[in-house]
């Protein structure tokens, strides 16, 4: 049976729910968002990821209606929403600070938006109860925001923003104030709720792990521009530039000049007097072009003996070991004092490890393990 994969962005006939067309936003002489074009589809869980000041929050505030673009168009379901004030948009936002009304209890906070929509009393009560149940807050309905925990407040904020069943829910760093363990649980909860309600979510975060966990697609932003928009796995496995490779996860970057050795095969000359590295790439490069080979630490194999039949091998010396329990990251010094990182699962007890500080080791990887990126 053919399983249909949720990927409306690959379907040229699919109509986007949100369309940014050449949107620019300037604050004085600072350009927060630069000529940006982006489509977001219905039912997506879309993450805007980037360092602080990259324009991701401005994008979100433009969707909510708190900022108007300096130029360009923003469409929601085919309608230009730029002239629509925030209170008239079918868009709700969950604020980073949660912005719960301190003078209202949990129940009234959730009912706030419904009351503004003049919902009949019974329907309103049913809807609030439904939201309380969805976010497991039934027991706290009569409490004031300052009488509940941070995690509960976060769920109230979520329930309140979902209560009006918006076409689009915006989440501004929704887990920024939670501790790590709670954050991980909440991420899965959020995905469940997104699936149950079928609402389109746009989340703003600077936490790449969070973006990778929850999102169907991730947009990596920097200085007001979109650097790459793709699924988490594509962003991780096939970053389109060094910035993305470096921003998402850990990566080794090896600089060198390429020489073609086949239709998709290149030899990378990376250090004088060392055998060139072999790498495959769909993207064509010119002879002697300067490139970067980006390769993830976990795709590098580390061994005490020279490995047989590996496409790429570098000899080095263990410079440092970061022991993380389940895995260890080895910092290996290779030719020219360069440090490469390799990760290995700690399948054996630590005292049985084959190599330790200052031991000679071999790093090896397949030709298709890394990506070649333009310098």
């Amino acid at each position, binding site marked *: 049976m053919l399983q249909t994969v949720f990927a409306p962005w690959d379907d040229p006939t699919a109509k986007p729910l949100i369309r940014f067309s050449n949107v620019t936003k300037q604050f004085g002489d600072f350009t927060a968002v630069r000529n940006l074009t982006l489509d977001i589809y219905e039912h997506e869980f879309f993450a805007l990821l980037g360092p602080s000041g990259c324009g991701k929050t401005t994008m979100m505030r433009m969707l*909510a*209606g*708190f900022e108007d673009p300096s130029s360009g168009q923003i469409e929601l379901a085919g309608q230009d929403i730029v002239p629509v*004030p*925030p*209170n008239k948009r079918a*868009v*709700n*936002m969950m*604020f*980073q*600070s949660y*912005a719960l*009304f*301190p*003078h209202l209890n949990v129940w009234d906070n959730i009912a*706030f*938006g419904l009351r*503004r*929509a003049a919902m009949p009393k019974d329907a309103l009560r049913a809807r609030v109860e439904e939201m309380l149940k969805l976010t497991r807050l039934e027991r706290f309905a009569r409490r004031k925001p*300052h009488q509940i925990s941070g995690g509960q407040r976060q769920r109230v904020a979520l329930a*309140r*923003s979902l209560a*009006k069943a918006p076409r689009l829910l915006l989440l501004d760093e929704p887990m920024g104030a939670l501790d790590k363990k709670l954050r991980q649980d909440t991420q899965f909860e959020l995905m469940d709720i997104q699936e149950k309600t079928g609402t389109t979510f746009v989340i703003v975060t600077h936490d790449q792990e969070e973006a990778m966990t929850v999102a169907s697609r991730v947009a990596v932003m920097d200085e007001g521009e979109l650097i790459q928009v793709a699924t988490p796995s594509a962003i991780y496995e096939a970053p389109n530039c060094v910035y993305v490779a470096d921003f998402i996860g850990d990566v080794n970057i090896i600089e060198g000049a390429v020489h073609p050795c086949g239709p998709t095969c290149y030899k990378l000359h990376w250090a004088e007097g060392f055998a060139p590295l072999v790498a495959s790439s769909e993207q064509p490069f010119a002879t002697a072009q300067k490139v970067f080979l980006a390769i993830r630490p976990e795709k590098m194999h580390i061994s005490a003996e020279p490995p047989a039949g590996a496409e790429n091998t570098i000899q080095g010396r263990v410079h440092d070991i970061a022991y993380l329990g389940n895995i260890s990251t080895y910092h290996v010094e290779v030719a020219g004092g360069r440090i490469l990182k390799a990760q290995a699962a700690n399948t054996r007890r630590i005292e049985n490890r084959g190599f330790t500080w200052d031991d000679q080791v071999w790093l090896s990887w397949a030709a298709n393990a890394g990506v070649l990126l333009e310098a």
Partner: protein
Amino acid sequence: MKRVVVALIPYLWLLGLFLVPFAIVLKISLSDVAMARPPYLPQFSWNEGIGAFLSQLDFENFTFLTTDDLYWKAYLSSLKIAATSTLLTLLIGYPIAYAMARTPEQWRATLMMLVILPFWTSFLIRVYSWMGILSQEGYLNQLLLGLGVISEPLILLNTKIAVYIGIVYTYIPFMILPIYAALHRLDNSLIEAAEDLGCSRAKAFWLVTVPLSRNGIVAGCFLVFIPTLGEFVIPSLLGGSGTLMIGKVLWEEFFNNRDWPVASAVAVVLVLILIIPIVLFQQNQQKQQEAES
């Protein structure tokens, strides 16, 4: 032991500076007026003993307050003037506090300074200068006549309007400061959240800003209402004979009639009236502190 002493200090303060003087005033209010020095009887003497002294005290002066309608009219008029000027001060002070809280950070200290600045000049001098502004040949009339807004000078001084102007002018910082303190803490994302959930600007103001500045409003209103109720200087300098306020009556009893016992009775009743708003004010402050902790 040390803790007990520390805890006792405010009570000793209250005892020495409020309860003892109040007891003295209460005692005078229960005495009879006399041509003596001090001008009332009985005087306590150890020879006659406490019982004989107490037996001479009576509530005659309080009964007297009910027989002459001047007094209850003055109380009522004071309450009305205090309530009206509190409302006026709120209506003028709230927008000022709101604007202050919304100005960029670097201007706020200056604005705050401007609100407090009048306190650097004596209260009496400021009230006197209002006489210069409001009198028939005063600056205001000269300005309005000069601009051609009016052809006859307005009669402002010695009217209720002048009293209201004086009270609002004098007490507005007490309204602005607590409201500003409440609004200044207000997180702007709450307003955005209200708008996001379907409120217009005005509705968000009513449903979020006003309730969240409630404690400031209540504190400001009490800080204006309580001193205004017993206000004496402003009505006697700016108000005419038509402005009846209990503070003025009290002063006249003391200094014109030299009837200390009746004047003390007026003061005791004033304190009793003020106890209610003062207790309410304390409760409000306490609630606010609890909400913040």
